């Protein structure tokens, strides 16, 4: 149990996909203007990450590895994730049209989102050989995806707050818009460096 909590905490704070590993930057910069959209996008990412792990981990464990096809990981994962995102889009369009409209172009962006692919691959790399066979590794992988998704949510919500404050400030003309956004993103990500080592010392 303690181990799982450590995995989630590490994924949120130490190995935050956006702010420490710099994956999934496009939605981070694109959708973080408004808090509600940022939260909606993050929920979609959490959902897709969990779903993608739930599908790709068994594929790696039961299909690719036994046949010695581990090298097909990237292409198969992209294929599966793309199909999943399409499915999520169809479902959202049908049942939650408001969220679908507000996510707009960003939901298809998850298709090629490196954060989602990155989570799947790091799960396979880190937890596939874990003790406890399939089930043990699978549970750890799912918790890691959950943590990564929550970390994405945290980064998005934090940054949309930062951005709304920055937008209200007077800033030099040449920094207006994207430049000041990138600078603020850099500073927020530097602040996350402070979490390095905190989980091992807290729970280790």
């Amino acid at each position, binding site marked *: 149990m303690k181990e799982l909590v450590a995995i989630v905490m590490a994924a949120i704070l130490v190995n935050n996909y956006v702010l420490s590993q710099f994956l999934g930057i496009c939605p981070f910069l694109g959708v973080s203007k408004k808090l509600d959209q940022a939260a909606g996008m993050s929920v979609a990412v959490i959902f897709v990450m969990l779903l993608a792990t739930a599908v790709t981990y068994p594929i790696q464990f039961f299909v690719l590895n036994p046949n010695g096809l581990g090298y097909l990981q990237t292409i198969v994962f992209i294929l599966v994730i793309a199909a999943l995102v*399409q499915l999520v889009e169809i*479902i959202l369009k049908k049942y939650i049209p408001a969220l679908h409209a507000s996510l707009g172009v960003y939901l298809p962006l998850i298709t090629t989102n490196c954060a989602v692919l990155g989570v799947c691959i790091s799960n396979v790399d880190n937890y596939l050989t874990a003790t406890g066979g399939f089930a043990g590794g699978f549970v750890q992988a799912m918790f890691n995806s959950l943590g990564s998704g929550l970390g994405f949510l945290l980064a998005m919500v934090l940054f949309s707050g930062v951005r709304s404050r920055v937008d209200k400030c007077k800033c030099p003309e040449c920094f207006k818009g994207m430049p000041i956004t990138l600078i603020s993103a850099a500073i927020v990500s530097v602040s996350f460096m402070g979490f390095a080592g905190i989980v091992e010392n807290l729970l280790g």
Partner: protein
Amino acid sequence: MEIGIAVAVVGVIGLLCAVMLSVASKFMAVEVDERIPMVRECLPGANCGACGFAGCDGYAAALVEDPDLAVNLCVPGGATAAASIGKVLGREAGDVAKQVAEVRCSGTCEATSVKMDYKGLESCAAAKLLFGGTGKCVYGCIGLGDCAQVCPVGAIHINGGLARVDTSVCIGCGLCAKTCPNHVIAIRPADAHMVVDCNSHQKGAGTRKSCSAGCIGCKLCEKNCHTGAITVTDNLASIDYAKCDGCGKCIEVCKAGCLVALNITKAEVVNG
């Protein structure tokens, strides 16, 4: 052999995904109001935004959703578009007056001249930042063609240092009027009898100094107009197109030559 397994594995996974997606799209298809694409077909697709919506798709969707929305907001499509939309939606079309852009300046190279040898960016907006533009008249057409660039149908050309609108091509979307940094361009009815081709609010002497074709605000046209269509405010004549009956009297009396006849009914007028 090994590559066969690899191909088979990826192929089967792809096939499963495809089947899943096609089943999902069948069962969870969202019904789109079929009138939206039909209305969209009636619109010209210039996406100029003259209707006030974000492109033709936005206007089509709004038309279907809001039964009180006027069907004749599309300027480029004109009466034909309004009529066909009205047919699709079963509403009265109403009239669309065709409108065109008018560059309200007569400051050709002969009539006026430049006050500097501008070597900067080829853009009116940039030139405007430098002492109010290149020309002697700060109200007139700068002639670097910001309007020509933004025109979706290529109706504007720079001729003799002055932007000119080809009214047979112009769709009246008003993008040029929004772009012009001097607000020289205005949208007028296509069947206007005459126009004031000057935008200078300077006093008569000032206008004279910078341009030989500018309106000096002498009010002769205002006094001679029998319908009261012309009024001179801030040293510049302006026409109420609804009142003007095209008698052409004002053009006869105009000393400056800023009034231009387009469609004069009663008098034969040669504009000096």
